[in-house]
């Protein structure tokens, strides 16, 4: 029983992490219609901010990571994505792939291709016991952060003028523009928030693994993309659900798979969305529900 509870909390924590990734991707997709391959590299670059500022207090490193995520996302939008705004899906997708390749290899050249270790506060790696369960503090941080992000996004989207503009742009970009929504600003804000979310994910990953590497963005971007597909494209709720589902599946398979199959966990996890797509070609929330995109 205790073990089950433990596993469920682990599953929830990983699901939250994946949901944060999927949210960052969906936010840009709803407003701009682009699946952003470079989102994984936003995560990676933010993580490297922690490595670069390893000498400073950890909180300062986190602040630097946030700044890095936001700045890189804004820069990528301005330099690479704005020129292909309105182009077809494939053009945008490949453009973001190019940005991802550039960012990843810039870090390879600037630092190293190998992983570098980053010291994290010891309090993070400790556990707190609650009702017989020993819950790693990092999982509290993840859960708490996810709740804050969800609440903050909800407030922003439904309680502010900026949020209204973003929802309008997500619904019908051209019409929103005609009605006076400033496209550049709405898209920039989406990218900034997306970059901030990427930074949060980057910090969480570093706290868990204690290291950074140029290729560390690959798994998150795949996870995020798949979560978005499972959830039905462009729905925030779907993205969170897809992330939770994928994270929980990954976590639980790691525990409950027979030993011989554990190395193949990723293969099983990423086959799962294909199974969903066989029966629901447009994702779990595709179709009617998925149309309410924000």
């Amino acid at each position, binding site marked *: 029983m205790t073990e089950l509870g433990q596993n469920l909390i682990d599953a929830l924590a990983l699901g939250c992490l994946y949901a944060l990734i999927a949210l960052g991707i969906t936010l840009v997709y709803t407003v701009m219609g682009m699946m952003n391959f470079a989102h994984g590299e936003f995560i990676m670059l933010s993580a490297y901010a922690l490595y670069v500022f390893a000498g400073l207090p950890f909180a300062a490193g986190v602040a630097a990571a946030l700044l890095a995520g936001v700045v890189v996302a804004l820069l990528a939008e301005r330099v690479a994505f704005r020129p292909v705004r309105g182009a077809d899906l*494939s053009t945008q997708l490949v453009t973001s792939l*190019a940005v991802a390749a550039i960012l990843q*290899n810039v870090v*390879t050249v600037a630092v190293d291709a190998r992983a570098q270790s980053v010291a994290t506060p010891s309090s993070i790696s400790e556990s707190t016991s609650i009702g017989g369960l020993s819950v790693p503090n990092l999982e509290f941080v993840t859960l708490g952060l996810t709740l804050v992000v969800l609440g903050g996004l909800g407030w922003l989207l439904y309680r502010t003028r900026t949020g209204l503009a973003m929802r309008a742009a997500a619904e019908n970009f051209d019409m929103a523009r005609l009605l006076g929504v400033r496209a550049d600003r709405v898209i920039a804000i989406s990218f900034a928030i997306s970059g901030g979310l990427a930074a949060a994910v980057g910090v969480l990953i570093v706290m868990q693994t204690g290291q950074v590497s140029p290729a560390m963005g690959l798994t998150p971007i*795949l996870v995020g993309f*798949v979560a978005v597909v499972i959830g039905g494209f462009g729905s925030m709720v779907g993205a969170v659900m897809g992330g939770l589902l994928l994270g929980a599946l990954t976590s639980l398979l790691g525990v409950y798979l027979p030993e011989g199959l554990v190395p193949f966990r*990723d293969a099983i996890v*990423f086959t799962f*969305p294909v199974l969903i797509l066989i029966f629901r070609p*447009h994702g779990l929330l595709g179709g009617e529900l998925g149309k309410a995109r924000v």
Partner: protein
Amino acid sequence: MSDARFRSRSSAAASLLLPLALIAIVTLIGANGTPSFEGTVTLILCNLIVVLGLQVFIGNSGVYSFGQLGFATAGAYVAALFTLPAAFALLQTPGLPSFIADAHLGPLLSTLIAASVSGLLAMVIGLPLMRTSTLAIPISTFAFLVVVYNVVANWDRVTGGSSGLVSIPTTTSVESAGLWAAAAVALALAFKWSSSGYRLQATREDEVAARSIGIGVMRERLIAFGISGVLCGIGGALAVHQSGVLNPTTFYFGATVTTLTMLVVGGARSVLGAVVGAIAIATVNEVLRGVENGVDLPGALSIGGAPGLAAIGLGLILLATMIAMPEGLSGAREAGELGWIRRLGLTAAAPLPEPDRAVASRPAVDPALRGALRAEGISLAFSGLRVLRGIDLELEPGEALGLIGPNGAGKTTLVNVLSGFQEPDSGTVTLDGVDVTGRSPTRLARDGLGRTFQAALPFPHLTGLESVAVGAMGIGVGRRRAPAVAAEVLGRLNLLEQAALPAGSLSPAGQRLLGVARALAIQPRYLLLDEPAAGLSEAECEELVEILRNVLRDFGCGILLIEHDMSIVMELCPRVQALDDGMTLRVGTPEEVQADPAVVESYLGSSFRVAAGA
């Protein structure tokens, strides 16, 4: 030989020979270099085959796949495992079934098996993946790539795990790679110019319009996905027999980005583009790698080694291409379509196919049966908004029925229901007595239901002749006969002058008429026209009326005409059905309908009354 061709023989020959010549030159340069240079060139040719594999699927479907290198991985491992020398096989892959471990096949046989396995894998994987949407395919194929990596990296006893395989026989020479590449070019071109290739290109140009002419999007994508898998498998198999080593990252994400860059920089829609892009990017890549390893440039300027530099360079090239030159180096044209080749005078203009006079509406399933397209009690609501409320409609072959009503009356939605693009909440649609409610647009088109759209939905990169011929191909007319059918339809619609031009370059009126021709090419028994005159000038409207009158006479199909211009409806349609608010107000002669107070009321003195008073 038939005259039914889209291009002159000389143009087709140029399209095949220029890429072959490029491959021959690369092969010769490689064969005359040092052994290590020859090895590099051989690998470039293997890569080129993989890029051609990408072109077959991505170029023709317009859908990006990030998973094709997974098929190169599959091909490479199969080829390696079937050829490993016994001693090394025992050491590296103890779990390998003995029929594979003891096979010790030669290069040709192992490559062919690798091609079959990866092709088969592509078909099996593609079956569920091609069902998903255009946007989900890049992601699900990406997931497939990771699954393949995960499996080969951890299946230690069979694949050698993450440390990979060594001592694989190195049997691929630069000449054999060159020959395989030449064969791959021929296959890619043959597919592009086949019926299936044209149908797939139509889905790339406009998925909705493609479905309306009987094209099964999933089926065509799956075929190309399979062929692409075969080519990628061959490329992988040849490459591993050049390098002699293989590990799970050989054809993984890095190679995916590199080969996609080659395809996109060359111009994804053309086979020439794939060849040019592969050669150009490989050359740039080798130069950048030289810089990466540290070279002394003239002038005593020394640039130190930095791994990753080449990848940054390629990334920047890819980015610049997407922003500034999305059609790529080839302009997405085959050699025979290039302006400078034509100006050299080597290629003749495309001949006009001999028209096929037998084109007309197909006979009813059973001539004794008095067939009709019939809708009964059609209702449909969009999230509570009731767009159609119990509509009946009947259209007979040879008859023209006008469908009128103010904006929002439900006319287009009704056509969408009739043509299968929308499933009704209740009510039935019967076609010549058969209940076809809920049938897909693709199926209905093959059953004899043609339609056009409010927007012209052209196939911009196909010529007028190709656009119409692909309609005939959509219902299964053979590749040889389709151009003749298209020529006949275009001739009857006075559109022959535009046959050789890309549909995207035509005037709005031209594109609209081409849309009618495309729908007629499926030889429909019933043709649904959604505002064909919208945006046409008065002269063009008169021409349209003339054309539609000819269509009624020559093709014998029933026409349902949605039109706001009452004068056109009056001229063509002896019977008119007026809708408002999702319900039928009146069916009758144009005069009766116009005189009906409810109909007049529904328009509230808008265009209808103006037209009626004129």
